[in-house]
């Protein structure tokens, strides 16, 4: 009897899976796959940024005379699930390309899938260097400045100080290890005499902050390179502040200045750290960034995060590519993305390099401070990634032959 039930169940399931509604044929669809639940704190501002850009694009007449539409799907942070959804978006929902993912490993899985199935993937948020370099492929483009570039910006500042003994603390997974390697390599290049006296590897989002701070203190470093973020950062800053770890030491923080991580810290935000981040509050009237910030605040009633600006530029990039291609087939879009210029983004004109499909989005670097009970970045500047990218020969050597 069980098998009869099984048949019924299977057919019921199959019925349930046929597309619920016919698509509205008059819009151009783009798939967006992300960890909306698992990383809600990062994914929500990103989604709002996309929605703002879509609203503006469609009020402006859409792309190729049609409205641009995103289909948002949750992959639970699971690479296999993400691939399945990408397949569904492309073959069933008729999306012309897809984008998304915050976690690098999901981005890598999607990128490998894109190359194999010849679909176009714009990796908006994942930071892993390998995505456009060692594991790069013609069908994957990436928007955000990679780990290497952001770490190199911090290393450049570190090399100007007297500090010789460095300690590092980074979450125990690929992003953390990659960031520490990049910081070390860049700093050693600029200042060969530095030595690294301690490397701490707390488990991601499960830091034992007291023990980590004690271990760092024990190594007596001159300066500390921090890669922890989110709740780990909050605990690390609290324990480190209480126990005096940061007194008299330079601290460099990768992504520490991003509002996602700095805002929850309130008046306990660290002061005097040199960090990469997103100082939207410091934008002056008239620059493109300020226009974005105002529009975002007005639309959502919230202040922007780094995810917001990345989401916004993702939608802008895709709209620009479709306009440039004049068509929506993958090859036309891919050719359009090569060397694409996107006008009027929050950083001005955004460019996608032909050599490695990486965009020209840089990073904001500055020093943290507490103003009005809130952590902010001061003395910041926006840095273009060009000076921190390996030479064209090195990049070409790293990328697999196309």
């Amino acid at each position: 009897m069980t098998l009869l039930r099984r048949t019924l169940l299977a057919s019921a399931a199959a019925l349930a899976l046929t597309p619920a509604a016919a698509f509205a044929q008059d819009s151009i669809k783009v798939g967006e796959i992300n960890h909306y639940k698992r990383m809600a704190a990062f994914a929500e501002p990103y989604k709002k940024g996309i929605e703002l850009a879509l609203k503006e694009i469609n009020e402006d007449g859409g792309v190729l005379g049609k409205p641009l539409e995103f289909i948002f799907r949750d992959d639970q942070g699971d690479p296999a699930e993400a691939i399945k959804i990408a397949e569904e978006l492309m073959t069933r929902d008729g999306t012309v390309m897809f984008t998304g993912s915050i976690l690098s490993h999901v981005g890598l899985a999607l990128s490998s899938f894109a190359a194999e199935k010849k679909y176009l993937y714009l990796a908006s948020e994942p930071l892993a260097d390998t995505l456009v370099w060692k594991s790069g492929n013609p069908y994957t483009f990436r928007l955000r400045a990679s780990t290497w570039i952001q770490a190199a910006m911090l290393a450049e500042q570190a090399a100007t100080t007297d500090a010789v003994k460095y300690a590092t603390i980074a979450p125990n997974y690929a992003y953390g290890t990659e960031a520490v390697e990049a910081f070390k390599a860049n700093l050693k290049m600029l200042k060969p005499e530095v030595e690294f006296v301690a490397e701490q590897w707390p488990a991601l989002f499960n830091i034992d902050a007291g023990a980590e701070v004690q271990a760092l203190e024990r190594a007596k470093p001159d300066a500390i390179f921090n890669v922890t973020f989110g709740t780990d950062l909050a605990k690390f800053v609290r324990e480190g502040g209480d126990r005096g770890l940061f007194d008299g030491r330079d601290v460099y923080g990768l992504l520490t200045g991003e509002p996602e991580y700095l805002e929850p810290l309130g008046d306990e935000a660290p002061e005097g750290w040199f960090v990469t981040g997103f100082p939207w509050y410091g934008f002056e009237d008239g620059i493109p960034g300020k226009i974005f910030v105002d529009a975002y605040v007005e639309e959502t009633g919230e202040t922007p995060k780094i995810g917001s600006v990345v989401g916004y530029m993702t939608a802008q990039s895709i709209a620009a590519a479709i306009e440039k291609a004049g068509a929506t087939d993958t090859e036309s879009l891919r050719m359009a993305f090569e060397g694409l210029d996107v006008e009027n983004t929050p950083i001005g004109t955004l460019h996608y390099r032909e050599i490695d499909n990486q965009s020209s989005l840089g990073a904001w670097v500055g020093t943290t401070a507490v103003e009005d009970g809130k952590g902010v970045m001061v003395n910041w500047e926006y840095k273009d990634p060009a000076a921190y990218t390996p030479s064209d020969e090195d990049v070409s050597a790293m990328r697999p032959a196309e």
Partner: protein
Amino acid sequence: MAFFFAQFLTGLANAAALFLVASGLSLIFGVTRIVNFAHGSFYMLGAFVGVTLMEFLPGAVGFWGAIVLTGLVVGLIAAVVEMVVLRPIYRAPELFQLVATFGVILVIQDLALMIWGAEDRLGPRAPGLRGVWRIFGEPVPKYDIILIAMTPFILFALWYLITRTRLGVLVRAATQDREMVGALGVNQAWLFTGVFALGSALAAWGGALQLPKGGADLLMDFNIIGAVFVVVVIGGMGSLPGAFIAAVLISVLNVFGVTYLPQSTLVLMFVVMAIVLIIRPYGLLGREEVAGEHGQVGAPETPIRPYGTRGRMVVTALLLVLAALPFVADQFLLILTIDILIFALFAASLHFILGSGGLVSFGHAAFFGGGAYAAALLVFHTDTPMELAFLFAPLAAGLLALGIGWFCIRLSGVYFAMLTLAFSQLVWSVAFQWRGLTRGDDGLINIWPAPWLNGPVTYYYFTLILAVGGILVLRHIIHAPFGYALRAGRDSPRQAEAMGIDVKRVQLVAFAIAGVMAGLAGGIFVFAKGSVFPTELEIAKSFDALIVVFLGGVKTLAGGVVGATFLSSVEHWLTRLEYWRLVLGLVIIAVVILMPEGIVGSLRSLWARVTGSKSEVSK
């Protein structure tokens, strides 16, 4: 020396919250025998409720008052959860309740997101306790000292409650023999509700007390649950002093691990647990677990038999439908069916040892992911042809299962489950941290099938043949003498041994066969997806399989397959909703309450009732 002492204090301070949460879980397990995965959710609720209350209640009185209130609020919520979700299913097969608690996790996650939003909350500082005291010159946060000072009082209060009060007498009696307690006229329902509420309140207090050291966020529930289970198991399930010793042991070892072996943060506690369980199979202070002391819970299992003519015809018809699918379905339906078939084979392999062998494994993903990695590593590093690498997947997984099984099968029940969990975490950490070999969580990518197989339709048939073949082989083994020996060992190890069956060896072989089949599923998986990541080895992956087996029905033969099909389809359909976890959680809870024998088991009972006793014979 001063430094060591300061480190020791850090460990003790960490142990305080951990002990509170773990003691709650231990109490709940001891009395109700529920493996409560949702315990971490009550810890998270405690943190969020605590933060919210502290915003309203100012000052030191407000701070400590908020903590006390948090326990009461969450205890009340837990009591409601127990009455609505768990009370209807105490008579269900053993461990079935863990599926319900999984549903509770999903519901609480989405509700917390709705109520408190996505942003992390920084916990308020304890008034007057910011900063450090110097002990032998080393800075020690004031709040750490308070936590350390509080722990003995908490332990004493719990000890008093358990040994000196009437409630304690009942709890201890129920821990030893809950059926006898019921027979003596104690209202079990209220005892269970009370203990569940108390245990959850302890978790909430743990969540609220850690606020000044951290905060509240939506990942807390999963982050603590591993450590809590480890502590409870090392201490011995149901033992409060054991939980205390284990909490201190794990916390202190962790602190030293961080300093002297910084890379060890991911696995240290699982290594400790594996060592303790290998030396002391019931934890430090636990006693031998006698599962189902008065026979198994629930209705006795009906004898299994091969399908009759009608059953075979239905199976054949179903297979024909699947074989004809490529002619009628679009490409995505094939991809989705491939996913479901892979998951069904994986679930069937777990169901094989769980249903017929009574071996509840919490670490079955080690063999699925192990097989996937074995094939992927060969392709990635040596460019082995796909056909050869593919064969290596079940082989390697089988060998891995033999090795792990050799350690695990000497244990039973929850301890067996936890040791398999520990080993699967070790396998996971190898994949995660040995970056030179496995590329860590960057994963192995570009693992695509050989050209002749590389197309949705051909790969669909490849999957169909192997997955269905694997499932049929497993069914055949269950009906073979080996299957009878395996079930004999499950139902009555002593009698089975008296009959000359080497129970442990039969179990080990079954464990290895399940490993081979899980590895086969992993092999199909890796070439279907083109990549493999440590996520395939995660605890969550093991639990996915566990949940569908229970959902489908442990005491049936088709349970794993049906459960896998059901959950994959429902999940695939629901994830496009905004609050899909809430809906999925409610669906799971509903299925659990309405079908306490699992989908297949309950439908079978229903069918039997509808058609009367005649078909009782024919099923």
